[in-house]
């Protein structure tokens, strides 16, 4: 099977967000593979080990993204492709157009991605790519079994579990609970250095800057209003419980 994983590099979820000069500051920020994409990488490796084939991890991003791709190679992926993000806007239309152009040049059996990215969080790219390629998709999956050219998947739909049968090739996005991503091993890290790593530009994908022009613009950024610590209730637990309900009625007026 030719298995592909769409991967994004994001800030570590421990990071606080600082805005300086109207931009999100990346000063000293630690980057990771988007946590949901990590499940996708792990699932790709499990499916390859069960059914044979290769796993290629693909990302659209700036040069620093190479580090995330190398981590995926160290986890066990076979090949990496970095599509030059400096010439492609961060708009989901643009990213999906570039990825679909890349996949259009490949022979694809299975494409996996994360349910959404923990930074911009639009949750659009994978479904857009599926549509552009004319492939069926299921998003937010928690189980994937492949047999006889078909995938049996379970997906999380707001707490309900849907079981679907999907004909391959297809695109799935990973939800938590799909698997437990492995850590890169030391031999894995050494081997990763020798694995194929391809860099592609817009021209290689047969695209021009006009093809990937952004459909949306960011006008400004803001931080949420800071919350202040409120009051710690006093007295014994029964008193605290009674006081709290009273405060919700009289002060917050929510009950």
């Amino acid at each position: 099977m030719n298995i592909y994983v769409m991967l994004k590099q994001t800030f570590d979820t421990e990071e606080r967000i600082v805005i300086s000069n109207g931009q999100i500051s990346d000063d000293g920020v630690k980057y990771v593979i988007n946590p949901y994409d990590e499940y996708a990488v792990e699932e790709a490796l499990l499916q390859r080990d069960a059914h044979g084939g290769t796993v290629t991890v693909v990302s659209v991003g700036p040069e620093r993204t190479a580090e995330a791709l190398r981590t995926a190679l160290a986890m066990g992926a076979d090949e990496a492709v970095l599509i030059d993000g400096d010439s492609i806007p961060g708009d989901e239309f643009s990213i999906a157009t570039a990825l679909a152009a890349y996949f259009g040049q490949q022979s694809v059996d299975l494409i996996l991605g994360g349910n959404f990215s923990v930074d911009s969080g639009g949750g659009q790219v994978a479904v857009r790519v599926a549509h552009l390629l004319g492939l069926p998709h299921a998003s937010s999956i928690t189980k994937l079994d492949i047999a006889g050219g078909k995938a049996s998947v379970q997906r999380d739909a707001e707490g309900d579990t849907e079981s679907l049968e999907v004909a391959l090739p297809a695109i799935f996005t990973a939800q938590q609970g799909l698997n437990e991503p492995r850590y890169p091993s030391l031999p894995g890290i050494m081997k990763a250095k020798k694995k194929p790593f391809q860099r592609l530009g817009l021209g290689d994908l047969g695209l021009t800057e006009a093809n990937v022009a952004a459909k949306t613009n960011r006008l400004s950024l803001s931080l949420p209003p800071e919350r202040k610590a409120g009051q710690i209730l006093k007295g014994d637990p029964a008193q605290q419980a009674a006081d709290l309900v009273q405060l919700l009625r009289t002060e917050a007026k929510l009950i």
Partner: protein
Amino acid sequence: MSKTFVVVAEVRGGSLRQVSLEALQAASIAKNEGDAVAAVLIGSQITTLAADLAGYVDGRVYAVDHPELEIYNAEAYFDVVQNVFEQVTPDVVILGHTALGRDLAPKIAAHLGAGQISDVTAIEQNGGEAVYTRPIYAGKAFEQKSFTGGPQVVTIRPNNLSPAPSVSPPGEIIEIDYAPSGSLRSIVKDIVRKTSGKVDLTEAKIIVSGGRGVKSAEGFKPLEELADVLHGAVGASRAACDAGYCDYSMQIGQTGKVVTPEIYIACGISGAIQHLAGMSQSRVIIAINKDPEAPIFKVADYGIVGDLFEVVPLLTREFRKVLV
């Protein structure tokens, strides 16, 4: 040039979803004088619901009613939407940022070659152009976005816009036939409804949430009892999910769901930055924790330092007194 806004409304558990009315409100904020609004309702046996919906739509309601549309299927629902778009050409399509909306909206956007702004929490008019506010980094920051052109797709986060007011006279209902294609490549085989009768986490007005301090799956019982009394939903921190006390679908945080209820009751949750990102936009936060130094108290409006297994049942009793 006048535009046409099309709201794709949603049925869940036999009722119209509140977020669909919020999406109609989004259309009325974003539209300019002379723009038209239409709505689409897809499902099975939805005659009554279509009439309900029409009561909020100053325009046409396209109802597509077929037994095979009872359950959401991306391909089937997309076929339906395409049929509707033959009747009404959309300039702006608005959906709820729900399981359905998150799945269907990007497919519509790709089909239309449209930009999409997802998970919108506020809309403002700026000289005839709509400006959309949405959280990034799960609410650690917000961005304001606009479209560079059309067509446009927008998804609305539940619980953030007020629902559209009713209109009189109601909108005109137009029924559209649906013929199943028979060549769907994805088929829903089964649905396990873990949530039937329960309030959806993202739409809940009150959330009772448990962390590592809940200690076990059984430990969630008192939280569920409190949530039941409050007609709320039960959520969890990542620590509780990772420990196997509850399902990942309950997780609130930067991974997991971002929620904005009126009251958020955090029980035995320390308050890691990833969790705070997912709930700190709640209107009132209540923290119950044994550790007075827990970071959750720094964002809580009301804090109780104590054992949740003692405090939560007492709260249930007190709420029951005033609510029943």
